[in-house]
């Protein structure tokens, strides 16, 4: 049977390598890698992009997407991206950070990089726990959510309020595009692809910092099955403002 490329509705993105990803079954990281590879190959940017990886579950991202990568120290990806984008103004530079990396240890770097309006895209994966170390409470954990280190749920008296880092970044004049996306349903996946494309386009046109937050699941950290985790996140997303924030 001959292959007609017109008859293929969906195939594995060509920029993904053949390595099997180490993520748990149903992890949002893997889905976001797929979207990222899809958008980069759609925009023909594979030879013209430098990604900055971060510390967390996504630390081995350079094994999975076939582009140039730099692995930054914990939380310092925006600082590395600043240098790379200033030295290579013709390249698209983006960072890929989790919430433990960006909203916790790297808050300084992201706030100042966004405030300077560096020409980078920040992909922020917010799964509201420290996934790699076993699901401990993170600064982004919502009130009332149970984790390993707050088994009765997060409360204000003991743990304070969750840090809305994406909402903070919308207030800065240096950011040009801030969006909150998800990958829990195929509609969200298609919307997220559009947002990512828009963010990369802004960076190529040197308009300032673009931030795309992905509200993600962590099945192992949340102690849920992948389907349950997606359903839970879908109900939680109704209380959040999704889509373009700035």
């Amino acid at each position: 049977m001959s292959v007609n490329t017109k008859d293929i509705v969906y195939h594995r993105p060509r920029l993904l390598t053949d390595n099997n990803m180490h993520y748990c079954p149903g992890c949002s990281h893997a889905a976001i890698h797929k979207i990222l590879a899809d958008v980069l190959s759609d925009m023909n940017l594979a030879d013209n992009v430098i990604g900055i990886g971060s510390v967390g579950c996504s630390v081995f991202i350079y094994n999975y997407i076939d582009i140039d990568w730099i692995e930054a120290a914990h939380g310092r990806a925006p600082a590395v991206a600043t240098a790379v984008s200033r030295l290579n103004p013709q390249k698209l530079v983006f960072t890929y950070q989790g919430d433990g990396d960006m909203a916790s240890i790297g808050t300084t770097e992201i706030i100042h990089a966004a405030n300077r309006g560096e020409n980078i895209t920040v992909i922020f994966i917010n799964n509201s726990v420290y996934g790699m170390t076993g699901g401990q409470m993170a600064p982004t954990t919502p009130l009332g959510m149970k984790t390993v280190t707050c088994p009765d749920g997060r409360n204000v008296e003991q743990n304070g309020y969750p840090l809305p880092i994406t909402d903070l970044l919308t207030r800065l004049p240096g950011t040009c595009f801030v969006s909150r996306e998800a990958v829990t349903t195929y509609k969200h996946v298609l919307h997220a692809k559009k947002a990512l494309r828009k963010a990369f386009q802004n960076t190529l046109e040197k308009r300032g910092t673009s931030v795309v937050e992905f509200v993600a699941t962590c099945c192992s950290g949340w102690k849920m099955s992948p389907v349950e985790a997606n359903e839970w996140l879908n109900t939680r997303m109704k209380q959040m403002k999704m889509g373009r924030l700035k």
Partner: protein
Amino acid sequence: MNMHNTLFRDVHSAALRTVHAMLQKGQVTIDAERCKGCGLCVHTCPAQSLTLSQMVNSRGYVHSEQRFANRCIGCASCALICPDACITVSRRGHIPHHAMQHDSLWNNKLA
């Protein structure tokens, strides 16, 4: 008589299979070795065409399979939601060669 019954059943089921194959709009090919059995594709499929298999792959994961191929409408929802990008979707009757090489279940697809 028995022989006739068997013959009739065979012809009948072959005809049914042909009709089902004609109704089928899409073809899903799953790379079973890459699948981790998270079940998101099974949950998201609007036509209930996919199920989790009884078999495990070489890494010990129960993988998903297209048990009811004739229900597939080729919408690619499963491929979009699949975290590990192990699903290829094509229109009916056109199966990509690279996908066939990986798919151990291909021979049982229409059975």
